[in-house]
């Protein structure tokens, strides 16, 4: 009897021992702080000698009345709503182009993928120059075409779209790679058959390619969605959330409240909202992507 039990016990102990370093670190930097954030959001920010006090839902009441928070949430939703589908659409188009026998596909692939490698901060500084009023490249092109110069980052109407364009520029090439992989799995026989039938390019795409890359599309969409709610580098580097909070996104607002205003409790309440959003995305993932296929 003991002979049989020992290896069993061994597996439990050994399994936990092996996982222990990872468990400790993950708990310390993900699970415990996530819970602590939620708890902190029900307290006030300690000031000088005044300790934190339980305030119930006060922080959330402040938040509901805070126009900047509402704007940040709206901006972020808009950001996700536009960058996710556009990046995915472009990524798929890029993958189809690069996969085929197009002239100079190596150069094209290089052009599409290179932005992915750049640090966002470096890309943001380059685009900052690109967007400069009057003599930035974009405005020089506009003027050559007879339009007047646009103050891209200085107008509330164009500042957020300008940041979105940078994000799409940087992300599309990355997602292209996933579609490339998916397309390589599609059996050439299917395309061969389609050609025999003399099907149009659009029909081939709709009937064969699109359904077959669907799982990849969902996977990429989820990732893009998570990224959209974690955007902060380009906001810090390019606009500082302005003009008049037109480019303030959730994580940037958390950063500002936490490290410029030092209002830790309010920052905790804002972080809780961010966690909630990510939880919703996780929920979506659970239902859209079959866990059995992708995680087992």
């Amino acid at each position, binding site marked *: 009897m003991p002979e049989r039990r020992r290896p069993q016990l061994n597996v439990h102990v050994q399994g936990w021992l092996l996982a222990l370093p990872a468990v400790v670190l993950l708990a310390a930097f993900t699970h415990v702080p996530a819970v602590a954030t939620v708890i902190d959001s029900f307290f006030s920010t300690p000031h000088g000698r005044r300790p934190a006090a339980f305030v119930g839902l006060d922080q959330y009441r402040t938040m509901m009345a805070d126009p900047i928070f509402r704007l940040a949430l709206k901006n972020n939703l808009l950001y996700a709503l536009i960058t996710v589908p556009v990046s995915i659409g472009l990524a798929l188009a890029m993958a189809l182009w690069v996969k085929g026998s197009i002239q100079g596909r190596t150069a094209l692939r290089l052009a599409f993928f290179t932005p992915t490698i750049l640090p966002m901060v470096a890309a943001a500084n380059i685009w900052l120059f690109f967007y400069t009023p009057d003599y930035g490249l974009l405005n020089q092109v506009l003027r050559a075409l007879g339009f007047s110069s646009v103050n891209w980052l200085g107008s509330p109407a164009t500042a957020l779209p300008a940041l979105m364009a940078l994000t799409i520029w940087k992300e599309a090439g990355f997602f292209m790679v996933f579609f490339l992989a998916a397309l390589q799995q599609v059996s050439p026989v299917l395309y061969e058959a389609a050609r025999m039938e003399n099907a149009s390019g659009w029909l081939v795409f709709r009937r064969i390619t699109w359904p077959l890359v669907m799982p990849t599309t969902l996977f990429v969409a989820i990732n893009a969605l998570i990224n959209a709610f974690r955007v902060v580098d380009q906001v810090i580097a390019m606009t500082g959330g302005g003009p*008049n909070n037109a480019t303030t996104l959730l994580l940037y607002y958390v950063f500002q409240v936490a490290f*410029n205003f030092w209002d830790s409790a309010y920052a905790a309440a804002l972080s809780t909202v961010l966690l909630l959003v990510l939880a919703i995305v996780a929920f979506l993932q659970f239902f859209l992507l079959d866990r059995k296929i992708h995680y087992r």
Partner: protein
Amino acid sequence: MNILTRLTIAATLAVTALGASDASATDITFYYPIAVGGPITKVVDDYVAEFSKTHPDITVKPVYTGSYQDSIVKAMTAAKAGNAPDVAVLLSTDMFTLIDDELIEPYDAIAKSESDQAWIKSFYPAFMENSQADGHTWGIPFQRSTIVQYWNKDAFKAAGLDPEKPPANWDEMVAFGKKLTKRDASGAVTQWGLEIPSSGFPYWLFQALTTQNGAILANQDGTKVAYNDPKVVEALQFFADLSQKHEVMPKGVIDWGTTPKDFFEGKTAMMWTTTGNLTNVRSNAKFAFGVAALPSKVRGGSPTGGGNIYIFKSGDKARQAAALEFARFLSTPERAADWGIATGYVATRPDAWQTDAMKKYVSGFASAAVARDQLKEAVAELSTHDNQRVTKALNDALQAVLTGVKPAKPALDEAQAEATRILARYQP
């Protein structure tokens, strides 16, 4: 696993070796923001080198921390982690924030000798307005400025204006601006009359307009603001009108950082910016330019601006003494003069202007004295408790109005309400 283990150990060792610089009694850290490129950080490095030559018992570690905004974030994060710098140059307006979090030591608590006392009194009173509160002196002026107007003399000549005569009041500024704004055949502007930047810290430039219109934005204690005073509303209306009605200034938010470049490129004929840009303009403008005090409305004037030297609480007497010694070293008349010449900031004390180096500089370049002469009309820069938030309320209102999202009055009413809410905690 062997290689991995070794790599990890090597990395950990390297990290530990780099992370821990053991602090002996007289090692002090100095944070500073300066923002033009190479030569200026080098000037600071040279000061530190000179200091260590005359003070072999003190080692100063200078840390360049980026823009003012970056620097206050860095100083606060470091201080809250129990790792504060000993000395730092930060915006004079950060004073209340630093006091409220009990991060800085007042000079009068550590500088007690007679010569120390005389030293504290040796700076321009206009600069000390943002350095003193509750009867204590918390900051010593280092890189202080006022806003001045720069104009392109060649552009003035081309527009038929007297190249030696900058606008003296708001009406002239608009009139000149209209003459200086040039459009091509399609109606697109090729040269603007004026740029007053409005990114980052628009409140500062706006405060020049409110000052000229006879308004004061905050009380001396930093507990009350007057954002929706009718004179402030009027000033904001004028600010917005410059681009929206008179069309002499680009629409939308004008970036602070690129404004000098726009001036060099001939995209704008006049600009408002800190006197701290003087040396930058002098070495990069390829045309004859002038510098003058800002135009007036009911009065002239500009807020002061720029950075003070703060001494952080460290609980270590020796380090605080060393920090004080370094602060005194940085603010001698000779060094104040030298720093002013290197950058364009206003040398912070009257006797600095009596040094030979400064006399020689001013005699060859009269523009250098403009910002100093404007001090007579200068007011304290907007500074309150919870300063970042209270000024953000105003900044947001300004940007909303400048970008045409809101009219001036309701925007400022909102800003006032928000500021009042934040400041409620500090009311006596």
